[in-house]
Structures are given as structure tokens and as C-alpha cells.
């Protein structure tokens, strides 16, 4: 197991370097940087003090140095936990990102759990009742969820909740709790608001998971050992749950790697529509104002979130399935 973890971590290193490179390129992409815009503004106002501020900026970030030097400076700062300054908010980036990133983690986690809870029974039903009306109907619903753009679904849900429940469900909690300390009432309020984004984002991932679980389970159900179990008189329920289902369960864990980027993508656009205090709106605003340090750092944090998620799912899978743990460990020792 330790060998497997070590192997898994060494694979991660080049990926992290790749992520930082892509992020750096994106930060550098827009023609002209935020600073030149600020300089132009300063000159227009003619204040000398703000010009001094800018000079310190320029020196701190090595904006006069060649690109590769800037990259090295940026990465070493990163390793020390310094992500640069958001020009727009005039605050260190990590202060802007921190809270919203946590909320993103919560929303994404809840969405994945929701996807599992929905996909599991439907997938099992579809596989055991292959080609029945229920199978076709549920598959169609899953596909509809896949094909409907998230943002529009969010908009319609927002309206529906407003009309039918009389609640305004924008945001992630009622306004009076936003700056309040955590309490039971605040927690309940968050739960009341959380279900809409979770359902909306979850719809797009559910269809894929249902189909994979259905396909896996169908493969297993045709195998000899199931026939043997049935022939020996095992009740159908046990003959399903005891072995085939356990074999078909792998996608639930393994799919986190596919599901997580998808869920985070969905969370970004849905939270723009529902104006949740997650990364979405802040990222969009940062991109619109070309506040590239903030935008790039956001992107990198989201990518890191995915990498860590995939790592966790791989480790879980290794715990559950000795074939993976032993196979990979032996292959690379």
C-alpha cells in the first residue's frame, strides 16, 4: 500500500508542474497587464503617490524581468503560500479566494453525494429491468438532464421556487446569516439554499454514472458465477447484492476523477446565475476586469482541488480493490 501511495504521489509531481505552467501562461495571455491600465489611470489623475505604489508592485513581481524569471518568482512565491495581489480588490489573492473555495468544496461534495444517491438505485433498476419501460423512461430523464444547459435549469428553478415556495433562493444562505457566526439556524438556512444548486449541477453528471453502472452490472449479471448462484437457489436479491453489485460498484469511486471537473465546471456557471458566494461569480468578475493574478489563482486552485479529489478516489479504490493496489505497486516497484 505504501509503495502504491508513493508511486501515485510521484506521478502527481509533473502534473502539478504542468498545471502551474498552464496557469502562468493564462495569467500572461491578455495583451498588456493590469498594471499598465493602472499606470494610465494614475497619470490621468496626476497623483505621484499612486505612481510610487505601482513601482513597488512592479519590483515585487519582477514585471521587468524576462518571462522565465517571472515564472520562477511566481512559483517560489506560491510555494511560500503567497499568490500575489488581486489588483481589483487590492487584497492578497488568498484572502479573496479562501472563503469562496471552501463553499465550492462543500457544494461540489454535496453534489457528488447527490449524484451517487440518485444514480445508484436508478442504475441498479435499469440493469435488472433491461429494456423495460422503466429502464427507457429513466434513461431518457437522465439524458434530458445531460442535455439541458445548467444555467437555464437554474434560472427556471429559481423562478419556480419563488412562485411556489415563496422563498428567494438566490445565494447560499438567508441574508441575515451572511456575517453571523455558525449556528444551528445558519446551518439550516444553508441547507435550505443548498439543494437547488446541488440538484441543478447534479443532473448533468447523473446520466453518465447511471449508464456506466448499468453497463457494468449487465456485464456482471451475465457471468457464470451469477448463473451458478441462481441455480443453487440463492434468492434473487442476494444473488444480485452479494457479488455482482459489489463488482459493479467501482465506477462510483473511480468516477470521481471524471465527475469532479464536471461538477466544478457546473458549479461555476450555476453559481453565477444563482449568485452563490462560491468561486463562480468572483472568477467571472476577475476575468472581465482582466485581474489575471486572481483569475489564474482561481483556476489553479480549482485544478488542485481536482487533483486532490482524484488522488483521494484512487487511494479509496486501492483500499477497496486489492487488484489495483497490488497490480500497480508490483508493476512499478
Amino acid at each position: 500500500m505504501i509503495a502504491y501511495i508513493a508511486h501515485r504521489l510521484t506521478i502527481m509531481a509533473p502534473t502539478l508542474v504542468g498545471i502551474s505552467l498552464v496557469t502562468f501562461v493564462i495569467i500572461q495571455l491578455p495583451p498588456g497587464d493590469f498594471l499598465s491600465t493602472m499606470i494610465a489611470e494614475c497619470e490621468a489623475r496626476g497623483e505621484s503617490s499612486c505612481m510610487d505604489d505601482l513601482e513597488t508592485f512592479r519590483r515585487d513581481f519582477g514585471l521587468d524581468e524576462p518571462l522565465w524569471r517571472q515564472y520562477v518568482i511566481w512559483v517560489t512565491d506560491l510555494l511560500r503560500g503567497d499568490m500575489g495581489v488581486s489588483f481589483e480588490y487590492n487584497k492578497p489573492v488568498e484572502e479573496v479566494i479562501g472563503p469562496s473555495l471552501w463553499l465550492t468544496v462543500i457544494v461540489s461534495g454535496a453534489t457528488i453525494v447527490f449524484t451517487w444517491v440518485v444514480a445508484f438505485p436508478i442504475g441498479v433498476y435499469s440493469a435488472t429491468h433491461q429494456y423495460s419501460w422503466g429502464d427507457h423512461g429513466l434513461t431518457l430523464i437522465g439524458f434530458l438532464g445531460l442535455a439541458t444547459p445548467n444555467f437555464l435549469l437554474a434560472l427556471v428553478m429559481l423562478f419556480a421556487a419563488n412562485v411556489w415556495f415563496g422563498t428567494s433562493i438566490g445565494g447560499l444562505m438567508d441574508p441575515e446569516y451572511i456575517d453571523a457566526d455558525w449556528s444551528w439556524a445558519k446551518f439550516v438556512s444553508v441547507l435550505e439554499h443548498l439543494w437547488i444548486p446541488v440538484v441543478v449541477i447534479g443532473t448533468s453528471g447523473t446520466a453518465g454514472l447511471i449508464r456506466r453502472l448499468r453497463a457494468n452490472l449487465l456485464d456482471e449479471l451475465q457471468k457464470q458465477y451469477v448463473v451458478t448462484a441462481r441455480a443453487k437457489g440463492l434468492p434473487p436479491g442476494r444473488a444480485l447484492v452479494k457479488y455482482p453489485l459489489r463488482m459493479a460498484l467501482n465506477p462510483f469511486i473511480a468516477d470521481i476523477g471524471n465527475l469532479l471537473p464536471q461538477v466544478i465546471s457546473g458549479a461555476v456557471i450555476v453559481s453565477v446565475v444563482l449568485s452563490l458566494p462560491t468561486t463562480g461569480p468572483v472568477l467571472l468578475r476577475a476575468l472581465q476586469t482582466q485581474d489575471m493574478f486572481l483569475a489564474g489563482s482561481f483556476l489553479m486552485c480549482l485544478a488542485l482541488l481536482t487533483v486532490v479529489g482524484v488522488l483521494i478516489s484512487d487511494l479509496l479504490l486501492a483500499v477497496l480493490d486489492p487488484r489495483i493496489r497490488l497490480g500497480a505497486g508490483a508493476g512499478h516497484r
Partner: protein
Amino acid sequence: MTAAARGGGRRPHVVDDRPWDPDAVERLTPEQERFYLASQWTLMWWKFRRHRLAVWSGALLALAFGSILICEILAPYNLHTRDTDFIYAPPQAVRLFHEGEFVGPFVYGFDYALDMTTLRRVYTPNAGKVQPVRFFCLGDGYEFWGVLEMRFHLVCPAEGGTLFLLGADRLGRDMFSRTLYGARISLTVGLIGIAISFLLGVVLGGLSGYYGGWVDGAVQRAIETIRSFPELPLWMALSAALPVTWSPVLVYFGITVILGLFDWTGLARAVRSKLLALREEDFATAAVLMGAKPRRVIFRHLLPSFTSHLIASATLSIPGMILGETALSFLGLGLRPPITSWGVLLNEAQNINVVALYPWLMLPVAPVIVVVLAFNFLGDGLRDAADPYS
């Protein structure tokens, strides 16, 4: 004879006087012969045909792609025609009978009033104004494919009347016509994007699978890096970085390149795993021994064995691009007017007021859903058919 055999008694000596045919056992019925002689592509077609939903989806997509060739003729209005008398006019229902009499397809004209308390425009259909729809008629002028000046339409509103099948937007433009025009952009975005990602996927996956070693390692790490970025934020960041000075057409190409640039990873993985298996086959070794260069081995000998799989998985990744473009344009980071795509149209439906007051502005989502579903079903059918021997 059977009785004799069962009885175990002595069998009578029989000589069949028909000439002996040594192939009799192996001879195939005509159907079997047709099956065994059919080429692989014919087999695939037969298998594909059995997947009803996929065939219908394919037909639907063919229609949709056909319509973008002549959308100027199909649309009752020009893309940019504005009628300020009908700002936010609701959809008009097409009727056949007026006061119990058959008139043919027509719509009731609108009466307009301004609600003075809410300042809302109220349009009520007036049963006195019967406006028959004209067919094969002359209407708004347009430039067919940007060159030919024409006025011919398949359907037009009645003289002096209106025909807003899906309502009108905030400038009084016909949503139905704009949706038809939008298909031209939205559908081709996916096609160009998939072409780019197909090229990248085949080349990089091919190199990685054929050479192995450090090339494989590098490509694999690149794939992992790209896959760990959530797609939409990455697309957002890159399209936000497109220079503001670019013309809308350049932005359109920029967006398609961005969409294609990060979608090749799945294809590359598929190509790689197939190549890893196939390069061990005898025919590949034979080609190498005869002195074929890697490029020839990959493209001439190995790729054709799984082209069908590639086409199927490419089909399955087009809907992602269409949805991606829609989402980007909805956020205002993708295509910009005057380029009209379904996403740009949905950009108008950004807030809850629209859902409450002018819900028909959300209708361009219907073709998005239909096209995405159709591509998914078609891809499913193609994937099943790609392996006709199973």
C-alpha cells in the same frame, strides 16, 4: 430406415445415385453468403440500422445541418429585421379555422396597449385580424450566403401583418428566424472544434501509443494536466483573454479553437490503448519488417482498424462543445453580437424577470437540447455498430 437402425438389425444397402458434392456441408445459404461477403462497413451499416433511435437522430441531425445551408430562405424574417411596434411580442399560434371556417394557416394580429400601472407592453390577439401565412413568397431582403441579393422566403407574414412563431425580443426581432440563423453558428462550432481535437488526438495518441517510452510519458502527463482543469473555467479564462479588438468572425474561430484544444485527451487515450494492442499484431510487424516508416504503419495499417471507434467517440464529444459554446456566450465571454448563436440568444434570458415576463426568450434552449440528445443517441448507435462482429 430409422426403424431398422433402431432395431439394430441389418441395414439394407442403399446407393444414392445423385452425384456426390464434396462441398454440400459447407455450402452457405444465399443469406449467409451475403453476410459473409459483406464488407466491414456494410456490416456496420446493417448493425447501425437496427438501432432505431440512432437512425432517427441521424436523420434529424442531417435535417438540422441541411437547414443551416438555406436558413435565409427558411426564416420568415431577416436576422436583423427590427419591428419596434412589436417589442417583446409573445409567440403567435398558427391556426387553421376562423369562426368554424377553414381558412388555411393563419395567425391573429395583435392589439397593442401599454399597461399604465406596470408599464408593461400588453399584446392581445385580435380575432378580427386574420393574417394568413404566405408560402413561397417575397419578403425581407437578405444576402444569400453573403453574396446573392434575394427576397425569396419559404414562409412570410401576411402583407402588413406579423408572424412571430416564437415571439419577439427586446428590439422586436423575430426569435424564430434568429434561432434558425443561430443554428448556423452553434452547429458548426462543434464541427470545427471536433476536427481540431480529432487531429490532435490522433496524432498525439498515435505517437504516444506507437513509440511508448518517454514520448508516451510526456503525452500522458500532458493529458493528466489538461484533465485536471475543470473545462468551463479554463474555457472562460482563455476566451476572456481573446483580444477585444478582434472582429466577431475572428472571435468565432478563436472560440472553436479553444473548445477543440482541450478536448482531444479522451480521443488520444483511446487511440493510444488501441495502438498499444495492435502494434503487437503480426501484420504490424510485417509492415515494419518490410521497411514501412512509422507514419505509414500508423496511418495505413493501424488506424483503419479502429476508425469506426474513433468516429463514434468523436460524435459523442460534439455535444460537449455545443453546450460549452452556449455556456460561454450566455456568460458573455463567448461569441458577441452581431454573430448570432443559440448561446448569444440565451444571453438575453439572463435574469429571473425574463423567466417571469418573457419566457419565450428561453426557447432557443429547445434546439440545444434536441441537438445534444440527437448527437448522444447517434453516438451510442455508432459505438454499438463500430464493432459489427460482436
